[in-house]
C-alpha cells in the first residue's frame, strides 16, 4: 500500500462526540498517527449509538465507529496527577493536539496552550468548541444544536415562516467547524517553520457558519441597508421553479431557471399548453406566479418516480435531482463505482461498511483502513 500523505505526523486527540473526533479522523484517514485519549468510561459517542438492534454496547456505537477510524485509542483519567503526566508526555512528543473540552475545564486542568507549548513550542493546538475560547459566551454550555442556531443558519435559510427554524437533521455545526479546524490546523502545521513555531487555533463552530455561510451572503447588505431576509420554506423565492416537490416515490429538487433549462423541463413534461403562458415566461415572472405554477408541475411529478424525473430532466439540460434517501445514497451505483464505500473488520461489530475518504489523492490514497479502537486498545503500546 502507498503510504498516506500525512505519514509521520503525530496527533493527540482529546475529543468527545463529533467535532474534535471528525477533525482527528480527517488527519488519521490521510495517514497521520492519531492517538485518541478517552476517559476511562469512554467517549460519549460510545453511548449515543446507533447500535445494532438498538442494544447499547460501548464497542458497538455506529457514531463512534464512523468518527474514529484509523486512530489508536488510550484511556487516561487526566484529572489525576498520573493521568495528567501521561497526557503531557503524549503532547510533548506530538505535532498537534485536537480537543473540544470546555475552555474552563482545560484551564482547570492546567492544560492551556501556554503550559502545553512550554516544552513543545512547535505544538499546534486545535481547540473546537461551540462558541470559541473568547467572548461573552465562551464558557456557556452548548451542543451542536445551540451552535447551529447561534449562527443564524436556521433563521435565515431553513424552515417555514412562522414555524421554528430548522437544523439539517445531523450535526451540521460540528461537521462545519471540524472541517475548518482541519484546514487551518493543517496550514499551521505545514507552515510551522515559516511562522516560527506552533500556535493555538480557536475554532467556534457557531462562528464558522455565521461567517462563511450566513455572513458571506447577508452581512454586507444588512450593514449597508439595514434590512435582512429570513427563511421562506420555498427554496429560491425570487426565481422559479426552485423548490422541493413531491413525486410518485418521494421528492425531487425542481430547478429550471435559465431559458434552456425551462424549455427542457417543458419538453420532458410533454410541452403542456400552460408552459407557453405569458405568466410563466421567465424565472422572475414564474416566481411571482409560483402558487399557480407549482401545482401544475406537481401534476406531472406525481405520476413519475424521482430517478425517472432526474434522468429525463438531466437529459434535457435541466438540473433537477432526486432527493435520495440515506438508503438510496448508501447504495448509489455512482458512489459504488467510485469506491466511496469501504468495508472494515471490527472485533465486536464484524464486517462493517463505512464511508470512504472525502477526497481522492491518487499518489497517497486516504480513507479508513483500520476500525475505530476498542476502549483502551492501545494503552500498552502507547503508554508503555
Amino acid at each position, binding site marked *: 500500500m502507498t503510504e498516506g500523505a500525512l505519514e509521520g505526523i503525530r496527533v493527540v486527540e482529546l475529543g468527545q462526540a463529533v467535532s474534535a473526533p471528525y477533525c482527528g479522523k480527517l488527519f488519521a484517514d490521510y495517514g497521520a498517527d492519531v492517538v485518541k485519549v478517552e476517559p476511562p468510561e469512554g467517549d460519549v459517542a460510545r453511548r449515543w449509538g446507533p447500535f445494532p438492534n438498538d442494544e447499547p454496547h460501548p464497542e458497538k456505537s455506529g*457514531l463512534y465507529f464512523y468518527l474514529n477510524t484509523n486512530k489508536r485509542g488510550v484511556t487516561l483519567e487526566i484529572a489525576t496527577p498520573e493521568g495528567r503526566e501521561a497526557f503531557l508526555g503524549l503532547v510533548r512528543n506530538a505535532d498537534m493536539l485536537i480537543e473540544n473540552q470546555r475552555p474552563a475545564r482545560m484551564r482547570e486542568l492546567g492544560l492551556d496552550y501556554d503550559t502545553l507549548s512550554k516544552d513543545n513550542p512547535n505544538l499546534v493546538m486545535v481547540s473546537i468548541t461551540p462558541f470559541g475560547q473568547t467572548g461573552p459566551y465562551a464558557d456557556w454550555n452548548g451542543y451542536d*444544536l445551540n451552535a447551529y442556531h*447561534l449562527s443564524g443558519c436556521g433563521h435565515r435559510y431553513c424552515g417555514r415562516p412562522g414555524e421554528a427554524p430548522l437544523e*439539517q437533521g445531523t450535526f451540521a455545526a460540528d461537521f462545519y467547524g471540524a472541517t475548518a479546524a482541519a484546514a487551518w490546523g493543517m496550514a499551521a502545521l505545514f507552515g510551522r517553520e515559516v511562522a516560527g513555531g506552533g500556535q493555538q487555533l480557536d475554532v467556534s463552530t457557531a462562528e464558522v457558519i*455565521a461567517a462563511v455561510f450566513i455572513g458571506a451572503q447577508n452581512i454586507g447588505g444588512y450593514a449597508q441597508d439595514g434590512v435582512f431576509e429570513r427563511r421562506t420554506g420555498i427554496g429560491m423565492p425570487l426565481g422559479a421553479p426552485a423548490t422541493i416537490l413531491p413525486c410518485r416515490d418521494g421528492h425531487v429538487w425542481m430547478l429550471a431557471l435559465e431559458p434552456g433549462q425551462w424549455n427542457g423541463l417543458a419538453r420532458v413534461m410533454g410541452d403542456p399548453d400552460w408552459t407557453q403562458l405569458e405568466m410563466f415566461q421567465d424565472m422572475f415572472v414564474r416566481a411571482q406566479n409560483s402558487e399557480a405554477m407549482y401545482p401544475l408541475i406537481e401534476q406531472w411529478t406525481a405520476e413519475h418516480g424521482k430517478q425517472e424525473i432526474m434522468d429525463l430532466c438531466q437529459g434535457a439540460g435541466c438540473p433537477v435531482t432526486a432527493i435520495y434517501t440515506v438508503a438510496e445514497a*448508501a447504495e448509489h451505483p455512482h458512489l459504488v463505482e467510485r469506491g466511496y464505500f469501504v468495508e472494515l473488520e471490527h472485533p465486536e461489530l464484524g464486517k462493517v461498511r463505512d464511508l470512504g475518504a472525502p477526497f481522492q489523492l*491518487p499518489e497517497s490514497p486516504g480513507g479508513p483502513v483500520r476500525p475505530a479502537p476498542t476502549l483502551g486498545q492501545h494503552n500498552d503500546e502507547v503508554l508503555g
Partner: protein
Amino acid sequence: MAKALPLEGVRVANFGWVWAGPMTGQTLAFLGAEVYKVESRARIDINRILPPFAEGERDPDRSLQNHAGWAGNGSVTLNLKRPEARDLARDLVAKCDVVVENFGPGAMAALDLSYERLREVKPDIVMLSMPAAGLDGPLKDVRTYGMSLTSLTGLDSLTGYRGGGPVPVENAFSDPLNGIMGAFAVLVALQYRKRTGKGQHIDFSQQEGVMQMVGPAFMDYVMNGRVATTMGNAHPLGVGAPHGVFPCAGDDRWIAIAVMTDDEWRGLVAAMGEPEWASGMDDAASRLANLDALHERIAAWTAGFDDYELAKRLQGHGVAATPVLNVADLLNDPHYTARGTFIEVTHPLGFKETIYGAYVKTSRTEAAVRPGPMIGQDNERVFKGLLGLDDERFQRLVQAEVIF
C-alpha cells in the same frame, strides 16, 4: 503577531468560480498564500453580479456578498477562449504551487489546461478539481446547483419538520463547506509534496464531501437497515430530550435548548420552577418516549420570555440554551462583536463594506484579510512582474482582449 503567515511562499492559480473554488482560495489566502483568481470580463462570474451592491450601484466590482466570499483572493483576467490567454495561464501555473478549479469534468482539458498539460510546465503541481460528483463515474456530468447538490447525499431527506416532507436549505450550504475541505485537501497534498517531491491531481467530489455529514444516519442504515427521515431539531441520534427550538416573545424570536444529561434536565426543571408535569421525567428514556408532549410543555413555558434573557437565565442553571439569531443579530451580538467576526474594510474603490474576517482565530499569526478583489486588480503585478511581459506586449494583449 506580525510574524510570517504559515502559507507564505505558496502561490495559487485559482480557476474556481462562483463560491466553492473561491472559498478554497480565500482560506489559503487568509493563511498567507498568494492567490490569484483567474477570471474574465468576457464571461463575468455570476457571483460578481449578485445584489446587494455597494451604495446600490450595480457593478461587478461592487457586489457586497461577492466581496465577503472572495476576500483574500487576488484577481487576474484572461479570456481563455483565446489561445494566447491559455499560454499565459500555463505560464502562470508554471510559477505556482497549486491550481484550483471547480468546473465540470473535462472543462479544464477543453481549455488546454488539463492536469497532464499543467504537469508539463510544473511537474510537481498540486491540482485540486472539485466537480459536483467527481471526475469519473456514471453521475460525473450531473447538473446541480449548490443548493440542490445535498439532495444526492441523503442529507436533504433528513431536513424538515418531524413527520413532514423535506424542507430546503435555501442557499448553497455545501459550497463554503467544500471550499474549506478543498483547502484541507490542498494542504494535505502539499505536505505529501514536501516529503516526497511529488505533486498530484486531487479528485474531490463535492457530493462525497457533503455526504460525510450523513455518516451518523448512514451507520444506522448499514447496521440496522433503518432509513432516517426528517427529524426537525431533534437530536440526530435521538438520545437527548428536550432537544429543540422553542418560541419566545417578539417577532420570530426563538430559543434553542439541548438537554443531554440528567443534570441539565434538573437545571431546566429548576429554572421552570419545578412544574408538576416535569416530575416523573427524570430519566432520559421517559423524556424521549414523550418527546412531542414534552416539547409542547416547554414551548408553552418559553413563549413569554425574551430569548436572550431566557438563554442567560438557563445558562445560569447549567442548561445549554442559546437565542436563535437572525441576520441582524449576527452584526449586533456581543459575542460576535467581541470576537471580531465581522469587520468593516475600505474597498479600493473607496466605499466601506462589512465582510467577515478570520473565521478561525490564530494565536501566533494574524490572518491576512483583504477586501474582495476588483476584476484584474493584479494584472500588472502578475503579467509584468511575475511573468516578465514588457509593457508593450502587456498593452497589446490588453487591447487585443487577451488580458481581459
